[in-house]
């Protein structure tokens, strides 16, 4: 009698104790389900497919082990695409961050009408990659585009911006830098405004000038934000697609065939889902390394108030 009531009580208390976990799962269920279906499952599926040859419907047909990887690493096209991606990152990330930092610095001064400038500087965040690419396509137009008109004004030879393999990647990079400026600017401005004003006041009392304050206070205090924005820019650069699709379609002679565009072509134009998956795994690894870097070195530098 006593025993049974004790076990009943235990059962009840287990039910009660797990109440929190059960409620929490209820609230987390939509997120977890969606993550499983649209993030974790496809990630494993991508890895799985990268070991197979596939049919037209993307089902695994023949196990080939690492052959897909061997194939893409040997293929001139993929190597070329890696080279283009690395160059693209080098063109866009440093220049983009420096431009955004410059804009954030001049827009952080307490001047009349500064709100107007901030709005203008952040405006490209509201512009889609498709819209911006269409506009830049016109600016780069060989005969009626603005760039060539300016060149001819100063008697320089015209440049085939998007059609010359030597210029195409640079041209795409310029449009990308412009497009990403808004977001980077907004985040960096937020970072600047989070810096305690007392730091500057005490520096002023010590007689420090603008450049000294910039070097000794602003940049160190902004370092976590800078680090964050560098990471985001890197990841964004790896993921660029829309500007390629509209501006160059990967050409000329594959000079702008960035990795995501290459995956897209391989999968949805050539229907080679196996090799496309191998490329996707490669992309995943690149971004994983960048993110781990961010966690490892970024965390430590964050200045909490």
């Amino acid at each position, binding site marked *: 009698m006593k025993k049974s009531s004790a076990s009943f009580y235990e059962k009840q208390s287990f039910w009660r104790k797990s109440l*929190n*976990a059960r*409620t*929490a799962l209820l*609230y*987390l269920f*939509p*997120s*977890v389900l*969606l*993550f499983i279906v*649209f*993030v974790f*499952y*496809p*990630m494993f599926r*991508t890895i799985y497919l990268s070991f197979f040859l596939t049919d037209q*419907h*993307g089902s695994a047909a023949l196990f080939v082990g690492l052959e897909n990887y061997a194939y893409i690493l040997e293929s001139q096209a993929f190597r070329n695409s890696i080279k283009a991606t690395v160059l693209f990152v080098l063109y866009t990330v440093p220049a983009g961050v420096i431009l955004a930092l410059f*804009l954030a610095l001049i827009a952080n*001064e307490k*001047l009349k009408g500064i709100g107007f*400038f*901030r*709005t*203008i*500087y*952040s405006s*490209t*965040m*509201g512009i*889609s*990659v498709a*819209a*911006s690419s269409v*506009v830049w396509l016109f600016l780069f137009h060989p005969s*009626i585009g*603005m760039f060539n008109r300016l060149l001819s004004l100063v008697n320089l030879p015209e440049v085939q911006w998007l059609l010359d393999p030597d210029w195409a990647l640079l041209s795409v990079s310029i449009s990308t830098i412009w497009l990403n*400026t*808004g977001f980077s600017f*907004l985040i960096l401005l*937020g970072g600047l405004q*989070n810096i305690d004003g007392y730091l500057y006041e005490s520096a002023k009392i010590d007689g420090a000038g603008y450049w000294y304050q910039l070097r000794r206070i602003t940049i160190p205090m902004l370092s976590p*934000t800078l680090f*964050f924005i560098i990471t985001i820019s890197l990841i964004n650069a*790896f*993921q660029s*697609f*829309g500007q390629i*699709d*509209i501006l160059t379609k990967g050409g000329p002679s594959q000079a702008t065939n960035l990795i995501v565009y290459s*995956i897209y072509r391989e*999968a*949805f134009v050539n229907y080679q*889902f196996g090799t*496309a998956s191998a490329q*996707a795994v490669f*992309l995943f690894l690149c*971004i994983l390394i960048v993110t781990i870097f961010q966690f490892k070195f970024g965390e430590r530098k*964050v200045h909490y108030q």
Partner: protein
Amino acid sequence: MSFPRKIVFYFLLLFSAFLLFFPVLYAFMISFMTGGEIMQGKFFPQTFTLDNYFRVFERLPLMKYLMNSFVVSTGVMIGQLIVCSMSAYAFVFIPFKGRDFIFFLFISTMMIPWEATMIPNFFTIQKLDWTNTYQGLTVPFFALAFGTFLLRQHFKTIPKELFEASQIAGLSRFAFFWRVILPVSKTSLVTLGAYGFLTTWNMYLWPLLVTNNDQVRTVQIGLKQLQSQEVATEWGVVMAGVIVVIIPTLLLLFIGQKQLQKGLTQGALK
């Protein structure tokens, strides 16, 4: 600030603003020009006629595309707000075993780029028969680790005592979430909502993959169509299309710039 310094700063500000905004300004001007004017390389149109705008709406079912983009963006926004606020609430207000593990799961989704998973996702949508549907365009984006973190950050600033006081008053967990947490976090919800709307409106690759007819196609794909149809001949019409597409998001950004900046910085850095 001294007067000469002010001059320097205003010069830099104006110059940068002009350079940065030039492409948009130029596109705006061209959208009013005739083909001849564009060929001559003018900056100001002779007259501000709306011809190109009328033509772009004739050329494409642009109204339909705008509607689609609006429905999809609003759908993703609402979906994200619901799904992210629920998970953020669980992370902050319900202590349970395994919370760290699930939190780690959320973090790890940030390391997986959407593009690396798009092939299986494409087939998933096909299997669900969601190609060319609003579900196919919206549902995959409802869960968002960044959104959960942003809201979690704000929820954490709400004192625990508020929860305890409502427990004593006899409020259920859900009622506390609905009647206290959500109204108190209005600003963060607005930030996340604006962010979700903006990014969805500007989405390009996914709509390209899962839509192939005018019924659900979004404006971004419309722009691509317009551009590839009109090569070189009617840039005025193309730019009119561009202006129509960017106006909603630019307006949203102009209104919410301050809020967005605050919210994103917080979500990103703490």
